[in-house]
């Protein structure tokens, strides 16, 4: 059984009477512990596919199975629960809460997961240490560099020990050195058994992955795996 199975997925928007096919019949299977890059030109449907996989979005038609469960049939609460327990998001713009410390930011998914306070603190500390920010726990986002902010976001994404980590252009807002550091973190997460899916349009970033899916106009144009 695949971790993720997308069958004949369509996402169609209606913009001013005109049909926009953000996803146009996508079929993708993803196994556990894959390191996957989604590439393609701007507007090709990368983010849409990513959000679909992350259970943030629902398809216009098609079947989506996540760990054998039909995501299509889930209500808002079930989707929220899957996102909370199974999926870790990393955004291009970090999306940290500006008034909260690094530690508190990392604790947010645990709060929604109803984890007890003392346990939350331990898990958050552990996650921040794993991205090399053990000494920045009580800093607020505006006291951190871009690369450090993205590392807080990664710590937040993996604090719940999710089944997959999804990153939409995680290095898009970073200089190349910070970007490199972020990619090293993803590499080591992959090596410790995590499943990672990242969206990018940079070849340098994509070459870290072992499988690359290229989208064009909402269709899968290419799906290449490189032996690890």
């Amino acid at each position: 059984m695949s971790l993720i199975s997308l069958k004949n997925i369509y996402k169609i928007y209606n913009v001013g009477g005109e049909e926009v096919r953000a996803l146009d019949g996508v079929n993708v299977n993803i196994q556990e512990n894959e390191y996957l890059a989604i590439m393609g030109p701007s507007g090709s449907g990368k983010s849409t596919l990513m959000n679909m996989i992350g259970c943030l979005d629902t398809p216009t038609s098609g079947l989506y199975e996540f760990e054998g469960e039909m995501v299509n049939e889930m209500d808002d609460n079930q989707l929220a629960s899957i996102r909370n327990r199974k999926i870790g998001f990393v955004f291009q713009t970090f999306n940290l809460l500006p008034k909260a410390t690094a530690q508190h930011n990392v604790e947010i998914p645990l709060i929604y997961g109803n984890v007890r306070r003392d346990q939350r603190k331990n898990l958050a500390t552990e996650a921040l240490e794993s991205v090399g920010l053990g000494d920045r726990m009580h800093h607020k986002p505006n006291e951190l560099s871009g690369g450090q902010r993205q590392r807080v976001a990664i710590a937040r994404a993996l604090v719940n020990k999710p089944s997959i980590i999804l990153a939409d252009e995680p290095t898009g807002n970073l200089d190349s050195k910070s970007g490199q550091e972020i990619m090293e973190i993803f590499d080591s997460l992959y090596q410790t058994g995590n499943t990672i899916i990242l969206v990018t349009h940079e070849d340098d970033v994509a070459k870290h992955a072992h499988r690359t899916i290229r989208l064009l106009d909402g269709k899968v144009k290419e799906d290449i795996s490189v032996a690890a």
Partner: protein
Amino acid sequence: MFSLFIENFRISITSVLANKMRSLLTALGVVIGILAVTLMGTLISGLDHSFEKSMEFLGKDVLYIRKYEWFGDKEWWEMRNRPNIKIKHANSILERSQYAKYVAPVSEWYTSVKRDANEISGVRVTGTTGAYAMISTAEIEKGRFFSSSENRSGSRVAIIGKDIADNLFENENAIGERIRIGNYTFRVIGEIEKQGKFLGMFSLDKQVIIPIGTHQRLFTRRGWTGINVRVDENNIDNATEEITALMRQFRHVRPTEDDNFALNRQDPFKQQYSMIKLAIGGTGFFITVLSLVVGGIGIANIMFVTVKERTREIGTRKALGATPKMILMQFLMESITICLFGGLLGLGLAWGGSFIINQYFPSEMPIDLALTALGLSMFVGIISGLAPSYKAAKLDPIDALRYE
């Protein structure tokens, strides 16, 4: 779920503190509403207290025979031409009435009271008989009332009120000491306990009581006179009827003529007071409801703005696993926090205000009212936060994340 509650509370506090001025302005309606309702409550409780004490002073079972009506629609110039109340009728009433238990003639005049260099002006000098002590609810605290022989002989003895004792004697014993009432020297034989202010207006303790004969002789006939009659409380209406008839007879009022005197009682005060209370309560209620409604609309408005400003945050929270209900609770909590903050501020101001009220009417802020006020502000928070919070909860996560 407790963690989430704490988290929501933390978010709310952070948000309120981050926009202090905005929160304050937003909460202003609630501040005024809560201020109005608690001040009104404090005022009414103070008035009640003061009113009850004042009514106690008048007594439920006492008829005050006077030239003027205390209440009613008679013109004062009509009453002005009435003959004065004659002191001698006090005895006639005692002899002829079957309901009168005690009858005291009173004669009053205002003048200054001195001891050495200390002087109090505008003291109520009451001339009366020993029966007065049986009618008045105030107790003699020290010393005694004058005897009937002192009364008959026109002795210069005085019973002094608390204001006089405090001002002229401070900690000294006043009994046996001499004071000057107007231009005449009197010996103090008694002190009356503290009675406070009458309806918050004038002090009942700024009084001296002397034998009526002495009063009539020394203080001319320029003051007013009256007769206080204590009757059986259960028969007060019969007594009123009977004594009215007696007075008409004594004063030779023809059957076709109206009474040329008044039989005053405490009851009309009560009616008057209920109306005042209703007016204060009504005004307070109106101000409260109005400011809470206006305030509530303002809060709903600001909450919509807040939801809009934090759309991306809402998207992020949803991506991290917040359910619609959790988002709803977050914003509802924020709206409640603003209202509670306003409510507490209003209560604080009201607490300060109650000290001012306390200067006029001994009163305190009723605790149950304070709690009700806080409950009320929470209620406003919930009502005005509902629509914006619902909007936040229903936001599509993708749209929220994409929001610029």
